């Protein structure tokens, strides 16, 4: 009787949350999968089933290819900049953890991660601005050619990578700091007694032991890199209003197909591709972690 009552309480208490989950998460996820196999132009009532035709069209779609390529470059670019930098910074901050200013370091490096994205992107737009921006002024000062950062096809992607890395770094440093704090102190003392230098124990002890954290941060960074949108959107127009070069990314291409070209089914098939990428990355993470667990 009592057991039955407790079970009832548990079910009743979790029901509202479960209902919201079913309604606002599971259903739209299912809809994305379903729509990707249908043709739907918003206006017409019927949505004919067309099998994998959307995906076949994606294979030939130049704009989609460009978006996929740009997004992949951005995601891996951010990864390559962020992970090593974050690891070294976290090691240095951890080393100086007892100094009075370590709180300042943490806050300063973390702040770009929390400030609103658009205002922060605005600051970078000014930095990259071809005529007014300090970046070109610095380049000219050192005798380099000024560059059209936001217009050149390659440079505009680099600009997005720089902006995203600036934002992603704080998160990675924070997670690494948690990792460093969890490492056994005795091990490092033993290494020190054996004459290992700071950089040596970083390279031979910390780095291998922090592998699970590196894996986790890498996957998180990559996944958020593949979802990049706002940064590309804001950097795309230059400060004086003249439209800059649009860095086409997956989410942008998807939204354009859905709301500008009214091809919702097609956009859904792009969303499915995004989902597959994220699933593969997550599976790689889990299988690598499990391998470690066995070893």
């Amino acid at each position: 009787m009592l057991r039955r009552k407790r079970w009832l309480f548990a079910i009743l208490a979790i029901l509202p949350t479960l209902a919201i989950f079913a309604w606002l998460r599971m259903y739209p996820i299912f809809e994305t999968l379903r729509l990707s196999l249908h043709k739907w132009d918003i206006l017409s009532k019927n949505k004919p089933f067309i099998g994998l035709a959307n995906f076949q069209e994606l294979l030939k779609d130049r704009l989609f290819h460009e978006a996929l390529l740009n997004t992949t470059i951005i995601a891996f670019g951010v990864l390559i900049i962020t992970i090593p930098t974050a690891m070294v910074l976290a090691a240095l901050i951890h080393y100086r953890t007892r100094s009075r200013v370590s709180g300042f370091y943490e806050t300063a490096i973390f702040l770009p991660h929390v400030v609103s994205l658009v205002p922060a992107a605005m600051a970078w737009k000014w930095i990259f601005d071809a005529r007014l921006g300090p970046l070109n002024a610095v380049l000219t000062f050192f005798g380099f050619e000024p560059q059209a950062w936001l217009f050149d096809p390659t440079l505009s992607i680099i600009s997005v990578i720089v902006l995203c890395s600036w934002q992603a770094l704080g998160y990675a440093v924070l997670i690494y700091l948690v990792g460093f704090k969890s490492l056994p102190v005795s091990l490092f003392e033993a290494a020190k007694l054996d004459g290992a230098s700071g950089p040596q124990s970083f390279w031979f002890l910390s780095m291998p032991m922090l592998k699970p954290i590196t894996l986790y941060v890498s996957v998180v960074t990559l996944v958020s890199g593949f979802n990049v949108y706002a940064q590309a959107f804001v950097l795309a127009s230059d400060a004086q209003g003249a439209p800059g070069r649009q860095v086409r990314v997956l989410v942008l291409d998807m939204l354009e197909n859905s709301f500008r070209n009214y091809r919702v089914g097609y956009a859904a098939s792009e969303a499915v591709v995004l989902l597959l990428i994220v699933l593969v990355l997550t599976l790689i993470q889990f299988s690598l972690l499990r391998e470690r667990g066995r070893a």
Partner: protein
Amino acid sequence: MSANPSSNPGGKRRRIRKMLVDRGIDVVLLVFSLLMLLPLVFLVSNGFKTPQEMLAWPPTIIPANPTIDNFAAVLQGTPLLRWIFNSIAFAVLSTLAILATSSIAGYILAKFRYRSLNVIFALVLATAIVPFEVYMIPLYFQAQSLGILNSLWGLLLGYLVMSFGIFLIRQNVIHSIPDELLEAARIDGAGELWIFFRIVLPLLRGALGALGVLAFFQAWTAFAWPMIVATNREAYTIEVGLALFQTGFTVDLGRLSAASALVLIPSISLFVILRRNFVQGVASTGLKE
């Protein structure tokens, strides 16, 4: 370390070396921290500059003749305050909804062991992997059929629950609330609701604080969802308002910076005040195991 360093010249040299290394690391970290902050500092300072000073090289950090013209122009030319209000209302309501759903669901999933609940937990776990961007288009049509596009409720629709919040609370309940405590309360005749409100919630205060800050900033910085849901000027959040405002052709950099600074200053202050909570929350995202 050695017991008597002063009698040992090697130890003294080593100490001096250590001090030099420490100072060197401090310099590196200090320079790096300042570089990270520099874009934001310039943004705020640009907001106070006259158009002439904006063009000056090298850019000044403290404006020579600070002016508030940019701020006045922005506040007059755009419904900036309205956008800020929308963002705050959206973020506060989203935070409340996430705190409520996460605390109840997290507690139930941690302390009640039934097979049906395991299935529910597996489902929550599975949806957590899927990025919001993947299903936001169908979600948009759900909001449309409810007739809540361009409203606070439409914004809220995407931000009522947070899978990570449920994990976080579940982890916390498992680690910090012993079964014995709940059993003792039950033996004393306490009802399940009383236990949740009087025993569990107070013990979760720290975790809920961290989650609350996380949820608030998540909504405050949301971009793609508000961008598609809010299409009329009055319904924009501050992020969308600014992003679209900057694509206008007549906008100059001083005004843009002023508008951005107006948005940045409150969120930076809030972050500095709530830093402990925030860091705790974010740090726990990395400790899922």
